[in-house]
C-alpha cells in the first residue's frame, strides 16, 4: 500500500517512499522517479542558505575522506558510503565529520559518535572487538573444531579398508560382471 502511492503523484512524493524503511515493491519504477526527485530536491536546496563547506588542511582532508568512505549512508538501501551518496543526510554527515576533525577529534571518536546514534550498522568496517569478534573468530573456530573432529574420527577408525575389500563384499551381479568384461575395466 505504502510503496504504491508515491510516484504517481509527484517526484517529491516518490522520495517519501525512498525515505521510509519499508522496501518498495516498485523499486525499478521508483528508481527512475528518484532520479527526478533528487534533481528537484537539489534545486530546492540550492535556494536554501547552505552552510559554507569547511576547508581543512590536506592531511585532515585525507582523514575526512577516509572516514566518510567508512560510514554508511543510513537511508540508502544500497550500502553506499556517505562519501558516494547524494542524500541530504549524507551531506550533513559529511560536514559533521569535517567539523569533528576540525575540532580535533580522533577517528575512533568520530566513528563512536555515529555508531552511538545509528548503531554499528553505520560502520562499513565494524570494529573487531566485543561481540564482533565472534563474527571474525567463528569461521576459525569452526575450522579448528571440524579439523579436530575429523582427526579424532580418522584416528578412531584406524586405517581405511582397501577398496578391493568393499568390492568383494558386494553380491554377485551377472549383468554388472558382463559390463565389466565388455568394457575391460572394473579392476581385478
Amino acid at each position, binding site marked *: 500500500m*505504502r510503496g504504491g*502511492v508515491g510516484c504517481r503523484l509527484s517526484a517529491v512524493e516518490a522520495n517519501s517512499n525512498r525515505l*521510509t524503511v519499508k522496501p518498495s515493491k516498485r523499486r525499478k519504477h521508483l528508481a527512475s522517479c528518484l532520479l527526478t526527485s533528487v534533481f528537484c530536491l537539489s534545486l530546492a*536546496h540550492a535556494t536554501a542558505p547552505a552552510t559554507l563547506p569547511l576547508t581543512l588542511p590536506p592531511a585532515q582532508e585525507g582523514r575526512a575522506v577516509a572516514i566518510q568512505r567508512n560510514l554508511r549512508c543510513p537511508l540508502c538501501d544500497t550500502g553506499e558510503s556517505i562519501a558516494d551518496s547524494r542524500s*541530504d543526510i549524507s551531506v*550533513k554527515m559529511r560536514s*559533521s565529520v569535517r567539523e569533528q576533525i576540525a575540532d580535533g577529534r580522533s577517528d575512533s571518536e568520530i566513528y563512536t559518535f555515529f555508531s552511538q*546514534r545509528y548503531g554499528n550498522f553505520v560502520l562499513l568496517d565494524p570494529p573487531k572487538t566485543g561481540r564482533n569478534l565472534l563474527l571474525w573468530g567463528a569461521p576459525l573456530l569452526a575450522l579448528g573444531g571440524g579439523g579436530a573432529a575429523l582427526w579424532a574420527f580418522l584416528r578412531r577408525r584406524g586405517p581405511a579398508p582397501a577398496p578391493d575389500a568393499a568390492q568383494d563384499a558386494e553380491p554377485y551381479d551377472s549383468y554388472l560382471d558382463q559390463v565389466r568384461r565388455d568394457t575391460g575395466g572394473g579392476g581385478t
Partner: protein
Amino acid sequence: MTDTPSTQTAQPKSVPTWRRALPPLIAAALVGVLGYTLLNPAKNVTTGGPLIGKPAPAFTLTSLDEVPVSLASLKGRPVVLNFWASWCGPCREEAPLFRELGAQQTANGAAILGILFQETKEQNARDFIKEYALAYPNLRDPGINTGVDYGVSGIPETVFIDRAGIVQHMDRGGLTRERLNVGLKKIGVKGL
C-alpha cells in the same frame, strides 16, 4: 579397558539412536537459525536502536510559530517526538493519530513535538499542520543536527521518551494505533 574389543565389534552394527539422530538434528538447527536470522531483521528495522535506554539527546529548536522549545524544559513529562515532512506519505497516514493523542493529553500529560526532517518547503509543512489540525509545536531542524543526534535514517520516525528523559522506544516507518500504543505504554502514557 578390557572390554574394548567386544564394544569395537558390537559398535558398527548397533549405533545408538541419539547418534544417528545427531546429524539431522544439527542440520535442522542450522536451517532453523538461518531462517530465524533471515526473517528477523525485517522485524527489528521498525523498532529499537542504539538510543534505547539512554538519555534523550538534548536540543533547543524553534517552532514554526517562532517559539524556542527545548527538551530540557519538558523534563518530568513523557515526550513523544515525531520526525516528519509534508512530502512523506506514511507521515500523512499517521497524522490523525497524533491529533487524537494531542487532544487526549492534560496539562501534565505527554508532550508531543514534531520535528521537520528535510522539509523542502516550509509552507507545505504549515498546510499539512492545518489540514490535520495538529495543535502541538512543530520544530525546524536546520542542518538536521537533531535528526542525526537521534539517528533518524528515514521518516516517519517516532521517539518515546519517559519522564526521566530516557529513550524507551523508537518506531520507524509509519505508526498504526497498535504500534503507537506500544510506545505510549513504555513511557507510562494511556494508549488511544
